[in-house]
């Protein structure tokens, strides 16, 4: 029973983080059909912001707010630098510019800060443990679950009820038609990038909370996770991304519990092979979203 509870908590906390990562990637993809390779760097930006504001002595929550804000700004910058100049051109061009922008940000961190890990302030509660029904678990796992629940609820309310959310869903379904009906394209795209940055910022706080330090390459793993989760769940569907995040966490945790030690190091190869297989079986993912995909 305790093992089971442990398993459930692991899956939920890991899945919550994965779902948020995937959501941040898919909100941009759904509307723009842009696979944002610079998404992992938004997480890096938030991490380094925490490091840079650390000496200011502000309370942790204020520093976290600054970090999330920086991630939002970096998201909007992605739109202006990597996306807007080539929006009307081929999919490949957009992919390459976002890849270039990711390299740019990473190397800027190398050049202006340091290649070595930098410590990030963490609140006390991140390192405490809690006991639930005989299971001892780090408090940050419960915080992750809570953050995921709050953000996912907020997000689904935003997408369903608010004018912005409805306009974004309209743009994701049929961009040209949405524009004809007066949806301002640039505003919608910038908002998608801003929301993507917001999610990346929150994920960054939770993700870095596990390690306590930030390095220039920190974004790669979240990016890969987000890729896998969105591909499994459905590249064009927001619900699919969340589902994919939890499924991936379930798979990872199961492999962690069952795979023998000498195969465990190949875990990434296993999960990525699975991604390839799923794409072959259902190129659109488990949940298919709205058809279309014009963005000009």
């Amino acid at each position, binding site marked *: 029973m305790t093992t089971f509870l442990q398993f459930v908590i692991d899956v939920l906390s890991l899945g919550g983080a994965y779902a948020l990562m995937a959501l941040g990637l898919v909100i941009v993809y759904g509307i723009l059909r842009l696979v944002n390779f610079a998404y992992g760097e938004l997480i890096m930006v938030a991490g380094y912001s925490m490091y840079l504001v650390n000496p200011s002595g502000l309370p942790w929550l204020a520093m976290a707010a600054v970090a999330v804000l920086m991630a939002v700004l970096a998201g909007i910058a992605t739109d202006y630098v990597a996306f807007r*100049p080539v929006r009307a051109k081929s999919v490949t061009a957009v992919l390459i510019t976002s890849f270039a922008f990711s390299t740019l940000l990473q190397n800027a961190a190398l050049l202006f800060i340091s290649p070595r890990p930098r410590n990030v302030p963490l609140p006390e509660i991140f390192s405490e443990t809690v006991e639930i029904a005989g299971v001892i678990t780090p408090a940050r796992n419960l915080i992750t679950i809570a953050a995921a629940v709050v953000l996912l609820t907020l997000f689904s309310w935003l997408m369903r009820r608010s004018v912005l959310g409805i306009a974004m869903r309209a743009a994701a379904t049929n961009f040209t038609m949405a524009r004809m009906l007066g949806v301002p394209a640039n505003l919608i795209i910038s908002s998608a990038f801003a929301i993507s940055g917001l999610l990346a910022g929150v994920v960054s706080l939770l993700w870095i909370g596990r390690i306590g330090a930030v390095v220039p390459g920190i974004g790669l793993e979240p990016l890969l996770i987000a890729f896998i989760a969105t591909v499994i769940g459905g590249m064009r569907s927001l619900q699919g991304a969340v589902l994919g995040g939890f499924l991936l966490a379930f798979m990872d945790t199961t492999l962690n519990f069952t795979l023998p030690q000498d195969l465990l190091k190949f875990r990434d190869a296993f999960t990525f092979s699975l991604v390839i297989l799923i*794409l072959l079986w259902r190129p659109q993912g488990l949940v298919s979203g709205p058809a279309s995909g014009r963005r000009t």
Partner: protein
Amino acid sequence: MLRNLTTVAILVGLILGLVVVTNLLGVRLFDRLATNLCIALVLVLGLQVFMGNSGILSFAHIGFMGIGAYTSAVLTIPTQMKGMSLPDLYPVLAAVEVSPYLGILLGGLAAAAVAAVVSYPLMRLSDAAAVITSFALLVVLHTVMTHWSAVTNGPRTLFGLPKATDLPLAAGAAMLAVVAALAFKESRVGLLLRSSRDDEVAAGAMGAHIPRLRWQAFVLSALFAGIGGALWGHFITSFSPKAFFLKETFVILSMLVIGGANTVTGAVVGAMIVTVAFESLRALEAAINQAEMFTEQVVGLTEIVLALAMIAVLALRPGGLFATHEIGALLNRRARKKREDG
């Protein structure tokens, strides 16, 4: 036909000129630079064969470069060295020692064989799905290289490869690559593939078997990558799996994008420009570090400049420097115009 011959003559001439000038100068540093450039040419032309003709971005290319390098390494490291550089190697392979030239060829073939097996089902995908799977493939190949200690010495550096690659060999390989890439582009498969790039639906309706065409290009491209990787391995003589990941992918991709992915000329010119820029920036970085102008080491400047150049090229001239026509076609057209005018 004439324009293709002109293109071949000019591009091969460029490489020959590079070899002659380097030999005349006789500076060791330039020799290293020119060899690196020729190896990069093989790799970029390989990527061009697939990406230029099919229009699909592939991240997996550098993974196949790694397969070539490791295959050749396992086959050519002298038997008495193997105990040290690959202690866990399977006994069957431990006794094998072939000449580096054969090793380079086998490295290319091994990469092509792996590509032939894994890529066929992937070629059905287009656009973003194709890019993400190729990215996934790169991660899988990288994970395997990092953890298959018996063959690759794990994440540690593998050393002991015989030094076999010199400038003439690398330049020869680069010239062959130019001819092969151009021949493929003008072949029946290449033409059909290019038609599928420009209009997938129309090409399919005319009866082009698109997955098969893409697969043929992909396998050829992996062959180039494998040979390029093996050449590089026998030039540098020690390397680790880190050499075959995103950083290298970025450099090769930037060469192709800046030059122009759709033309062989673009690939060659892009490789030359980026290599020169890359090496000068690296030298600048080293000079800054040597002068100790800043308290911390300067790293990453090169990549920042390259990334900016890539974004600028894609925004201002999305096809690269040579977007649609090879250099031969351009010159021919100009000559014809002159004749008509005069």
